[in-house]
């Protein structure tokens, strides 16, 4: 019996050793470059997790169809190992460990959300695994001195400061009175810090500064205060819940503000869910399909949007576009590095300077993209109640003129 047990243990140990040694060569197998990604396919971030995955998959297919990645005179194709992080940061960190130490992945794509990227970044950094991420915008990601983290998106603190600058410009260069309400999560609090910076820079005054709970579904108290103090700008950031709750209650309570700026409007499908009530809301966005950036793979935003819709049946949110851009960045870096050496690929990533359909990409020392401004779109509706998002700032990319101040509810 004892001998039998010893034999079983021995055989199992060899089997495990063999299986791990097979996958530990997984970074480049044959003609495949295998990237790893922990994505939220279940849990509270699963909608955006799926947008992220769709963006990655579309770019993988497109790059592979168009000749793949050329390294050392050989052509490689991209492939991605996905795991579901269940929208849980601890799970995401475990999966990053698993991808690197068990599956042998040597290059990573980012998860969805700042919180999960924060959980994964220390792991990729520890193993020296370059990670290009497309959905973690929190400023704190870029101030920790990470060397292997690269984000194709603009940091969170830049999301809405364009709105404040626009309001100040419309006010004849004089500071404005700002009311703001932000959810208590890493991303929203970074957006808040950006507003505080912009307020200081422009001589504006914060007159309401509310923090919204994560279980947010009622902001009547904040809006009652807004109604009483009549600010020039109301800024709200609380993911999709915040955007939907704010628009519903602003309309119900007939809160008049000259400018309403918020985040996550397209993820919340504001114009679809609220129709005309969402009209005039200004929304920060990393990307919009009408922007005229170009590349060889997706041509431009409109073509990308049409191709995406053909594949997945819906208009791409910016989360998908930036995820596709992450693959373009990896391809460019591999080809410039001309090797799969992680350190050299990391150096090539750091030297990235390119244009994609999603925008220009150039990384600062902290890893954030400094060459792509945020855009602001405004929800505009026609008389029939059909609403569209139109880019209004920065002026270079504007497809419509900003409507300011927002007409009062009694005049609508």
């Amino acid at each position: 019996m004892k001998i039998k047990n010893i034999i079983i243990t021995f055989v199992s140990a060899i089997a495990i050793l063999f299986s791990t040694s097979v996958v530990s060569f997984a970074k480049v197998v044959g003609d495949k470059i295998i990237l790893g990604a922990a994505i939220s396919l279940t849990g509270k971030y699963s909608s955006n997790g799926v947008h992220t995955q769709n963006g990655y998959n579309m770019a993988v297919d497109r790059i592979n169809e168009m000749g793949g990645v050329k390294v050392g005179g050989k052509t490689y194709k991209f492939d991605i190992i996905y795991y579901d992080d269940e929208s849980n940061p601890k799970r995401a960190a475990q999966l990053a460990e698993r991808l690197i130490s068990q599956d042998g992945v040597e290059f990573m794509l980012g998860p969805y959300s700042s919180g999960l990227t924060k959980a994964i970044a220390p792991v990729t950094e520890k193993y020296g695994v370059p990670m290009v991420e497309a959905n973690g915008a929190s400023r704190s990601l870029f101030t920790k001195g990470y060397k292997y983290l690269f984000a194709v998106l603009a940091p969170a603190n830049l999301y809405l400061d364009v709105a404040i600058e626009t309001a100040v410009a419309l006010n004849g260069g004089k500071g404005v009175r700002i009311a703001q309400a932000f959810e208590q999560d890493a991303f929203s609090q970074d957006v808040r810090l950006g507003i505080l910076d912009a307020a200081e820079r422009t001589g504006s005054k914060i007159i309401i500064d509310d923090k919204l709970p994560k279980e947010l579904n009622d902001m009547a108290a904040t809006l009652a205060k807004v109604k009483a103090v009549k600010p020039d700008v109301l800024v709200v950031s609380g993911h999709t819940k915040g955007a939907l709750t704010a628009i519903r209650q602003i309309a119900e309570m007939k809160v008049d503000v000259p400018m309403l700026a918020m985040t996550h409007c397209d993820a919340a499908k504001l114009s679809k869910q609220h129709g005309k009530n969402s009209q005039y809301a200004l929304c920060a966005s990393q990307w919009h399909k009408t922007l005229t950036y170009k590349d060889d793979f997706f041509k431009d935003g409109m073509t990308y949007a049409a191709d995406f819709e053909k594949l997945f049946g819906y208009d791409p949110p910016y989360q998908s576009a930036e995820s596709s851009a992450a693959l373009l960045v990896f391809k460019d870096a591999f080809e410039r590095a001309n090797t799969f050496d992680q350190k050299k690929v990391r150096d090539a990533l750091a030297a990235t300077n390119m244009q994609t359909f999603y925008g220009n990409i150039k990384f600062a020392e902290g890893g954030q993209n400094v060459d792509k401004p945020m855009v602001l779109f405004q929800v505009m509706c026609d008389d029939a109640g059909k609403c569209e998002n139109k880019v209004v700032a920065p002026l270079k990319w504007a497809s419509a003129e900003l409507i300011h101040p927002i007409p009062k509810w009694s005049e609508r």
Partner: protein
Amino acid sequence: MLTLQAVLDGLLLGILFALIAYGMALQWGVMNIINIAQGDLVILGGYIAYFMYLYGIHPAWGVIVSPIIMYFVGVIIYKLVINKVVDRDLFISILATFGISILFMQLMNFAFGADVVLANSGYGTTMLFDNSVTLPNSKIFSAFISIVFAIGLVIYMKKSKLGRAIRATAQNARAAKILGVDTEKVYAATFGINAALCGVAGALISITFTIHPYMGLPYTIRSFMIVIVAGLGNLPGVAMSGMGLGVFEEFADYILGTEFRIGSVFLLLVLILVYRRFKLSRKREYLK
């Protein structure tokens, strides 16, 4: 005016909370089960109204359709899980309903997606005092429907055969059984009625606030809090406690800030429990 706005908002909100809490008090009193999945049943009820809205039916009809469907959902949950834990200690039932809560969250996420959604009632707004106090008609409608259902249930519990059987079982299940009450049926009906009340509340929440598969827990906590304050089987107490909690939350929001809204509910719960324990210990000392 801000104070009046807060009081009215709180009262309207509190009436809705009281409806959810009444269901919890009922099943707690009858079956000795603390239902952690209470909030998830509310959210599921909300999704029923939301889907009606998606298919072009006014979501207000959800207050009729949702409780009917949710009653059967409640009975099925009872038959599958709750009947196995109904006579066990409270901890087992908490664990079981916690499991149901997780299962419901994941199933709703799987079936409906993780997007935050809402149903638009298009009910408009009531303006008072030269527009300085605004009351969304959807909130007034919610409070009105909650009151109608609560009164209806009180009458049903007093006048109907099943209502009397439920009350008898709550007083003494063994004696009720000896006197011919089918307690198994009573338990199933009680759980069904609780789920139906959650269905009504969910439909009202979908037209008043927003719904999301993972948004159930705050509703469980609030109803737990209301029941703790009011005590079991005390409907006027539940109604008062619900409205009180609504107003307390609104004032906490104004004075301390929105971030302390839920925290203040927890704090109040702790204070009440400490106060009750203090009162109880004094009573014991007196008896010695």
